[in-house]
């Protein structure tokens, strides 16, 4: 820049104030680092440019885990949700997932205010146009469009879809960030100069329509749960449901209009080169790929209490606006719908996450971290999860403390990060329960048990929360003991209860724990006979029941975890040239050189590294160390 000025020094800078940037900034500031958070537009802090909801399958796990570590997403969701549902009840505790519709403006407002109030944190509207090493070769300099130069010890890049953003609606295309904000048009170049391998990904969003133009008669209504289960372990009194969603379906006419106009989709005409997420297909994608499917479902979701904008989940598109209007009008309830904001596709720059370690720090650029869509993921929750990891590690680095690495057995967060930095991504990465091999252990009900001690050790869990956590853990221990000790005599009452739930009666005394192991029984059913039950929170009983019922499976997964952690504990040297290790196959050498795994465990998960290669590494490693 021609006119630059020295704007001062901070410990940590975060580029972007979306879901990743917020968690990164808050974590860093709360750990005592002076933290600067940049946003292109202060009115876009914590914006939800796609669906007005937080959580969902596996994503709900992530929110719980972020909260358990001391993050903000869960608390804020609890403060502004409109409808809360626990998904997958009946499919087993491993896949129970919480999802909330939220008031999107309110969410953004609360988050912005939290940043503003946070000690050690300064949030600034500015576009970063350059990132470079400071003269000392250790620190970083960030330059804003206005020429302000900030010097920092660590940087977290959380640029979302702003970086090199380009919007597509039919034949119309222009450079833009999400929701009509301007894009970060200058930062890609300096990043490439630093050696970051950038690629183009794309995503899309459906139209927002006017509530009064929808005919809700005859549409299926979807209500929230009662009682509401909150996301945050801090929320002691959950709020109430305040809105409903509606369900409708596409039909033959919708399909006909889309097929007729498919040539006008930039995806099919070849204008969009970016790779879109497989799990988030546009409606034209769904119709093209699943031609035999007669209809597709869509959800009509409110965007907030103080707006009449409604979100059409399932109907994202990059077809021209006029075509969108035509096909929306074929759908029951939307016959006369008025589009307030049209659907669009957005293409953006992101990085190859194989260049990062599990701390989310770039191996070749010490002090530089990445999080969120910039790392090739998709989704608010995935972004926030990486944000808290990157923010914590940036702060720990500045403070010269040991980094925080969450392994796959600790959490969905750890699984997400490990997948990104070990397997890489070919399309925007979304969390799914099927991605975790330890999912009977990594449940949403025990996120605190798994992560709160880590959050406490790092310094993100306050005394009050910690005391409450310890009390709950003690109650879990006591209740498990009680269940194993309590014996019910074979009474008429008990046997009637058992038979009425289609499970065999007993002839001798039976322990509460034994009864809870039966799939047909639970605490609620056994309440009439379990008279001396202590007054614990529902979560304690839920946990005890799951631990008993799934004992065998949990035990087996824990054995697998112990095995995995043995290998995880054997660190590999950094910046290693694996072609010098005799006995490795050349494919393995090549992959290991590219990914530079942190330990043997990570190496063993790289595709192309065989068990024999792992043996060679283990022996080579032991030899090096002696």
């Amino acid at each position, binding site marked *: 820049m021609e006119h630059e000025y020295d704007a001062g020094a901070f410990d940590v800078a975060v580029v972007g104030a979306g879901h990743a940037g917020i968690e990164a900034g808050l974590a860093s500031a709360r750990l005592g680092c002076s933290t600067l958070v940049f946003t292109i537009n202060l009115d876009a802090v914590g914006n939800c440019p796609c*669906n007005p909801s937080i959580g969902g*399958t*596996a994503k709900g796990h992530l929110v719980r885990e972020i909260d358990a570590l001391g993050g903000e997403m869960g608390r804020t969701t609890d403060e502004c949700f409109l409808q809360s549902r626990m*998904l*997958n009840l*009946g*499919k*087993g*505790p*491993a*896949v129970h997932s919480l999802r909330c519709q939220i008031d999107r403006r309110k969410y953004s407002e609360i988050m912005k205010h939290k940043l503003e109030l946070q000690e050690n944190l300064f949030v600034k509207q500015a576009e970063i146009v350059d990132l470079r090493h400071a003269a000392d070769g250790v620190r970083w300099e960030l330059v804003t469009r206005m020429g302000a130069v900030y010097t920092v010890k660590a940087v977290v890049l959380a640029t979302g879809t702003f970086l090199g953003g380009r919007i597509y609606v039919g034949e119309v295309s222009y450079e833009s960030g999400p929701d009509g904000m301007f894009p970060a048009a200058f930062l890609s170049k300096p990043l490439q100069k630093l050696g970051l391998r950038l690629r183009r990904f794309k995503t899309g969003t459906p139209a927002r329509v006017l509530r009064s133009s929808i005919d809700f008669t005859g549409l299926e209504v979807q209500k929230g749960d009662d009682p509401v289960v909150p996301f945050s372990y801090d929320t002691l009194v959950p709020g109430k449901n305040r809105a409903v969603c509606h369900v409708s379906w596409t039909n033959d006419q919708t399909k006909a209009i889309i097929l007729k106009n498919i040539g006008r989709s930039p995806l099919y005409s070849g204008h969009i080169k970016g790779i879109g*997420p*497989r*799990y*988030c*297909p546009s409606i034209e994608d*769904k119709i093209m*790929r*699943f031609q035999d*499917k007669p209809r*597709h*479902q869509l959800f009509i979701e409110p965007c907030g209490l103080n707006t009449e904008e409604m979100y059409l*989940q*399932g109907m*994202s598109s990059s077809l021209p606006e006029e075509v969108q209007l035509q096909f929306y009008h074929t759908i029951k309830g939307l016959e006369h719908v008025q589009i307030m904001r049209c659907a669009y596709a957005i293409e953006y720059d992101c990085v190859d996450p194989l260049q990062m370690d599990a701390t989310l720090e770039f191996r070749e650029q010490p002090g530089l971290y990445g999080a969120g869509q910039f790392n090739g993921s998709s989704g608010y929750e995935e972004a926030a999860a990486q944000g808290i990891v990157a923010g914590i590690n940036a702060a720990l680095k500045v403070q010269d403390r040991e980094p925080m690495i969450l392994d796959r057995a600790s959490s969905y967060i750890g699984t997400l990060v490990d997948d990104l930095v070990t*397997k890489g991504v070919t399309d925007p990465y979304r969390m*799914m*329960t*099927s*991605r*975790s*091999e330890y*999912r*009977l252990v990594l449940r949403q009900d025990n996120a605190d048990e798994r992560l709160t001690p880590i959050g406490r050790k790092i310094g993100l869990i306050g005394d009050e929360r910690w005391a409450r956590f310890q009390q709950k853990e003690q109650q879990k221990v006591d209740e498990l003991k009680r269940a194993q000790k309590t014996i019910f005599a074979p009474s008429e009452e008990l046997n009637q209860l058992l038979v009425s739930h289609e499970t065999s009666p007993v002839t001798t005394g039976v322990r509460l724990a034994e009864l809870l192991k039966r*799939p*047909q029984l639970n605490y609620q059913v056994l309440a009439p006979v379990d008279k001396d039950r202590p007054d614990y929170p529902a979560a304690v009983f839920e946990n005890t029941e799951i631990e008993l*019922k*799934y004992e065998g*499976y949990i035990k087996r*997964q824990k054995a697998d975890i112990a*095995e995995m952690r*043995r290998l995880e504990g054997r660190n590999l040297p950094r910046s290693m040239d694996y072609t010098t290790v*005799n*006995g490795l*196959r050349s494919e393995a050498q090549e992959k290991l050189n590219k990914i530079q795994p942190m330990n043997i465990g990570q190496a063993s*998960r790289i*595709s*192309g590294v*065989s*068990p*024999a*290669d792992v*043996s*060679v590494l*283990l*022996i*080579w490693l*032991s*030899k090096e160390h*002696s």
Partner: protein
Amino acid sequence: MHTIAAISTPQASGGIGIVRISGDDARTVASHVFTSVSGKTLEQIPGYTSLFGTVHDADGNFDQCVAANYRAPKSYTGENVVELSCHGGLYVIQRLLNACLSAGAVMAQPGEFTRRAFLNGKMDLTQAESVMEMISAQGKGAAAAARAGQEGLLYGRIHSVQKELTDTAAHLAAWADFPEENVPEVDSGKLEKTLKCMQSELEQMLQSFHTETILKNGVDTVIAGRPNVGKSTLMNLLSGSEKSIVTSYAGTTRDVVEDTISLGGIPLKLADTAGLHDTQDPVEQLGVLRSRRRVEGAQLILAVFDSSEALSQEDKNFVDMIGDTPAIAVVNKSDLPSKINIEYIKSQFKQIVYISALQGNGLQKLKDAVQQVLHLQQIDPAAGILFTQRQQGDVTRAGNAVSEALEALKSGMTLDAVTVCVEDAVSALLELTGESVSETIIDQVFEQFCVGK
């Protein structure tokens, strides 16, 4: 660390064969397959000591065994180790390994015992270097084998089971991960049917492994029956030479006479035994005892009867001894007038062959019967048969995981528990090609289901 097991003696017939088990649970695994004569358990005895007893699996006892106990860290690997020494012969030793795998051990990776020994400080650097080369060479060999296998029919067969299980897992995953996106409900009846079908397919593959072993190593075949029914005549007929002394006196054969022959392409390791009967003659008693042991340990019994005489109590006692071992009733002396109670024989044997050993007829029928009783006629050589222990280990693991999935389903567990078992099965079958389970399943989810917003 998993407890691992493998055959530690060369893959050839020998005097003894050893299965080595190493890991924390080595003694527990051993206790599932081995019972000592003295009643002592491996837990009760110190390291560097042994117990004598029998080894068994779900089908019962199958050999005598010496179990050597090594307690960590004083063992080859530095872990708890049990070495089970049985009689040589690959059939017995592979059956023992299978029993260990069923009891919870995992098939050892190439060089894994040595690797563990090294990591536990049981080996020095120079040794380590050579181990490294050895493992590397084995790795290359395994990769080549896997490549060759991929082109083979076996790969096709494993692949089709893996594909079916992956589809099942993908449906379960889509159903759980996209609850609001109109993914078809998982029908537990249909799920059970699919899993049962996969279970039987995997069992058939293991059966083919057994076939492969038979074709490679020969079938331990015992010619047995009461005295003077013509066992030795049959032996000589089959072997084409005067191996056994034939007289008209009952009890001529006192020791076991052996020979290996090929009957219709199937190698039979024949043993002609002393006639089974109660006798006061101490020499003959010894011979009879050996015959009994042979009969108990045989893979195939040619039970010889004399059609010219009524069945005696000795005949019936012998029939009772046979149990579940594949057996063929060879009704000899068909050239003489028949006095035998053939209905009784028919009720006891699935395969009956009438021969006249003296005249040398009925051999073709005997060949057919051997194929039938060993289930070899069902094995199409082009159907792909399992050929390495590694593959057998993977298929065994997959089969166990499918059984667990079925068990979870039947007991009314939620489907998340069933899902992890199905994924374990897919994981076992993907082991050879090294693909990642979750990626494979997720790819399938997006391939098959229209999910996502």
